[in-house]
Structures are given as C-alpha cells and as structure tokens.
C-alpha cells in the first residue's frame, strides 16, 4: 500500500489576464479565474495510476485561500481519497521558504507517507523550488523533473528529463519527494461518479497554529525577498515584416544574428 500525498496549488487560469495587486504586489487572486494548476492535475493523475496499479491512498494537500477548495474538489473528483487544506490569513504573501515549511508541517500530519508528488513548477509563482526545499525539510530524497515514474516495492524509479541534461535515470528508496513535468501523462477528466463523490470526501482544514508554526515564520512581512516595484509587460509590438524577394532566408539569418540568437 502506497500512501501518497500530492501537492496541489490553485493558480489563476493561464488563459485569463493575470495581475499583481497594486498595494503589496502579491498576486491579485480576485482578478482572474482560479483553477487547479494543470501540472498538479498531472501530479494527481500519476498518484492515481500508482494507486490503481496496486494499493494505496491519495491525499491532496493545498496551501491557499478559502476559494482553493474548488481546486481541492477537482482533485478529489478525479479520484483522490481525502484532502488537507491549509488556509490562514497569515499566509498571505508567503515566500517559497515559508510555503515549503508549511507544506512540510502539514505532511507531518499524515501518518506513514511513502511518496510526495508535486509539480516541477507552478504556472503562477514559477519558482520551481518547493519540491527541493521540501525534500530537504523532510529529509527525503528528491527525484525532480520526472517524465516517468514507477514504484517497485519500497523503491522508486524516475526518468528525469531536462533541456540541459537530457534524460537521467534516478532511483531511491521510499519515502521520497517526486516532482513531475508536463510530459508525464494526460490527466483524466473527472467522471460523473467522481464529481458526485467528491463532496463527501473528508477535507481537513488547518491553520498555521494547528501546524505548530508561528505566524512570524510566514506571510509577506517575513518573506526573504520583497517586491519593490512591478510594471505590466509592455504590449506586444507589431513585429517586423520582411518581403521575400528570393533572399528571405538571408534576411531571417540576419535577424537572428541581430537578436544574438545565432
């Protein structure tokens, strides 16, 4: 029986316009539709596959505001068994260090965890650091950028794929932390029965205090980095049009050289 915790984050839909709040430069979560991060759907899918191949239990863990219940429900409707939702005003503006601490403490509430599965990076914060920090805090091996995962007894094998290094085969003993990439799988759609069952599945809601953490360790005021200024991305310019008078190829090459791309 593999006891799996999947880390899921609610993020603004990448199709909607995303903004930072004017006052404290944190993500303006009200301005965009909030969804379960797609990479986390894949993390859930991978957990469910491992569970279905043998025996197991899948707990989803989410640190986020009240409305993150929608993202949790989506993961439960896909087939996860239960959820932990850490929600606390004090968490607003937490940095990756604080987020990882909170997640580590929440994982401590689940008995006998064999495997933690995360996305390799979120589509909003995009730090790509939580899984590594978490492995460090939990004292577990980290197998990141997985595009293939297999659990064999008490061992886990991962094909790690990055643009720089190509494919590396990793192996570790459980318990371990795995982060998955976009390529790992195609997440399932929630079935009707899954949707109907989701509401009845247990969701444990915890505060920072419930985790035995001090509010002084988290939140915007305790972040290691501060955002002093933010400006919206300038609108895309029209681009350059090149007429092809038989020398189109040369012109493209010149352009790329000009951009220092070749």
């Amino acid at each position, binding site marked *: 029986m593999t006891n799996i915790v999947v880390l899921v984050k609610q993020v603004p839909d990448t199709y909607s316009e995303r903004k930072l709040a004017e006052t404290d430069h944190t993500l303006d979560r009200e301005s965009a539709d909030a969804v379960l991060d797609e990479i986390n759907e894949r993390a859930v899918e991978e957990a469910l596959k491992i569970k279905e191949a043998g025996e197991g239990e899948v707990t989803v863990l989410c640190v986020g505001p009240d409305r993150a219940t929608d993202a949790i*429900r*989506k993961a439960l*409707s896909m087939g996860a068994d239960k959820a932990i939702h850490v929600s606390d005003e004090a968490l607003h503006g937490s940095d990756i260090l604080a987020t990882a601490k909170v997640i580590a403490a929440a994982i401590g509430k689940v008995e006998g965890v064999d495997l933690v599965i995360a996305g390799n990076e979120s589509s909003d914060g995009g730090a790509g650091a939580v899984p590594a920090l978490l492995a460090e805090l939990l004292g577990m091996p980290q197998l990141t950028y997985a595009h293939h995962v297999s659990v064999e007894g008490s061992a886990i094998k991962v094909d790690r794929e990055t643009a720089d290094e190509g494919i590396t085969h990793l192996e570790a003993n459980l318990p371990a932390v795995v982060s998955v990439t976009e390529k790992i799988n195609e997440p399932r*759609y*929630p*079935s*009707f*029965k899954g*949707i*109907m069952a*989701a*509401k009845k599945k247990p969701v444990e809601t915890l505060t920072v205090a419930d985790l035995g953490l001090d509010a002084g360790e988290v939140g915007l005021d305790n972040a290691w980095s501060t955002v002093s200024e933010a400006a919206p991305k300038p609108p895309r310019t029209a681009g350059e049009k090149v007429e092809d008078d038989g020398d189109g190829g040369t012109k493209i090459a010149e352009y790329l050289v000009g951009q220092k791309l070749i």
Partner: protein
Amino acid sequence: MNNFTETEERQALRKAVYDFGSKYGHEYYLKIAREGGHTNELWDEAGKLGYMGVAVPEEYDGGGGGIGDLAAVCEELCAAGTPLLLMVVSPAICGTVIARYGTEEQKQHWLPRFATGEVRMAFAITEPDAGSNSHKITTTARQDGDDWVLNGQKVFISGVDEAEAVLVVGRTEDAKTGKLKPALFIVPTDAPGFEAQDIPMDIVSADKQFTLFFDNVRLPANALVGESTDTALLQLFAGLNPERIMGAAFSLGLARLALNKATEYAKTRNVWGAPIGSHQGIAHPLAQIKVEIELAKLMTQKAAALYEAGDDMGAGEAANMAKYAAAEAAVHAVDQAVHTHGGNGLATEYGLGAMIAAVRVGRIAPVSREMILNFVAQHSLDLPKSY
C-alpha cells in the same frame, strides 16, 4: 422559490464535460461529419466517464442523477462544438422509457449498458404520413403465438446505423375491444425483415437519418416494452418531457457555440480602426441573443427541476416553452454569428455555415415549433383547437 444557482456538483459536471468536449472540439466534429463518419470515440470516452449514464438509476450502475444532469452534459458538449444528437434519443427517451416502464428483465439487459454508453438505441415514431400528427401511425404489430410480427415504415429516424436496437412506436389490436392502440417495441437493428435506408440530408452532422422498413419483422414476446400494452400511452408520455428538455439543451449548446464564435470575432476583427464589436449594430443583436439564451436556459432548468420533482404536467408546459425558446435562440444566434463574420461567416474554416441547417433541426424535431405553439395556445391559454 428554489435556488437560481445550480449545485456545486452540476457546475463541476458542466465544467468537466465542457473541458472534455473541447479536447475534441468543433473542427474535429466538422471533419468527421463532412467525411460522413461518426464520433464514436467521443461517445465511448464520454460513456466511460459516466456522462452518458448520469440519469440511469444507481441500482443499474448509472450515475443516479436526473434529467437536469443529462441536459447539462448535452448542452456542454454542444457548446464545446461536439454535439451528440443521439443523447436526445438514446439515454433520454429510450433510457427513461425503459427505466420507468420496462420489465425487470429489460432493465437488467439494457440499463447497465445505457449507464456506460456502450449501447445506443434509436427512437422511431415519425412516419411518412404521421409526423406532427402521431395519431396517424400505421406501423402495426400482430400477435402470432408468443411472438409479435411487425409491419410498417418510419422516416427521419436518427442514428440507426450506430444503434444496437430501435425503440419503435407501433400499434396493436386491443385483445378485448379490437381497437388499435399504441405499443412500444425494442427492435434489434439486425432483425430479419428490418431495413434501414439512409436519407440524404443537407445537414453537416455526424449522425444520419434513415427510412425504416419493417417487413414481417418477427419479435419475441419480451420485445414489447413493459408487461403489457396497457402502459404504452404512459410510456409515450414519459419520453416526452426528457425529449423536449434535451432538445432544448441541444439547441442551447449550439446557440452558445455560435455566440462564442461571434463575440470572439467581434472583439478582434477591426475594420475602421476599432473592433467591430464596438459598433452597436453588431453588439446589440449579440446582446439580445445572450438574453434569449439565458431565458431559454432558465426555462430548461425549470422544466428539469419540475420533472425531477415528479410534476410531469408542470414540467410539460415548461419543457415545451424551453424547447421552443432554445430553438429560436439557436437559429437567431447562428444567423447573427454568420452575419458578424461577414464573408468569413460562410467560409468553411469558421464552421458557421455548417450550423445554419443544424440549428433549424431544433425548430422541426422532435416536435415542430407550431405544434408547441398549439400546445401553449390550447393548454396554457385555453384557446379552441383548429385541427
């Protein structure tokens, strides 16, 4: 008054089905339809996810939901550009009739496979001389020992080539009075003497219509739906509300698809230095259609809620009005979407020309606009009948 917001589960279902349909999308649908194919993989995958069986009772492995859930699935698939016409017929009409009036044996045999979408069943009532006037049905079953022998003809029957069986509305002699009265039969599409000829139609659709011929089709006793012909009229009525609610949902989804395409285009197409959507000549008709869609949707939800609450009569009026309003909204939406696109409205790439005939179906079938207005005139307004 009930809540105007759908339950969390219904909303989650809509979202899941819309996302699922979008994975295939309108282009996929049109390509298959233009090649004369069927969207089997879409149907089968939706079936495995339980979307086709949402309204099948739980004891037969279905979702245990209601017609409102099934209508939501139907609408969202249409809105995503992947309409499944047989949803109106197979799970909604045939599934309901069998679940409410079938024998236990029939339920055991069919319902678990309706639940998974594994089986599709066509529904045949229309005849060449009995369309709006179903009293003129002549397809007749004669009893021969324990068997039934069926003779007659049906027309415009959808999806027969995709179906394992057809639920046929016929007539039979009453044993006591000798009068002809309705009887419903489940006829396998491979039964000897059964023939289906496809009708060339100018609709871009992945589901075809057929003329059916029954030439001494011999059926076992258990082909008759229910224990006897006594419940046949009730069976017919049981199918009506689901059929209308689903017809409405189908039109609503197509209306949303067309309106979406139109608003997207109106936001980006720029002719005089501003998006065309900023001109009220373009914006107002689209806004009117949005109003029509929302009103029709509300009436569809009301019909489903009344039906699920067991109020068949109340649901009848709402379902008819919903079906009427949704069909009109869809016709208006496509008309305006084509116009908003200018020349592109008729270019194959935009897929709107293909929808012109498709949304007209909602005005004709399963019951025409005029027959609904007749119903409202007579039942809601108590006006005298002319026919």
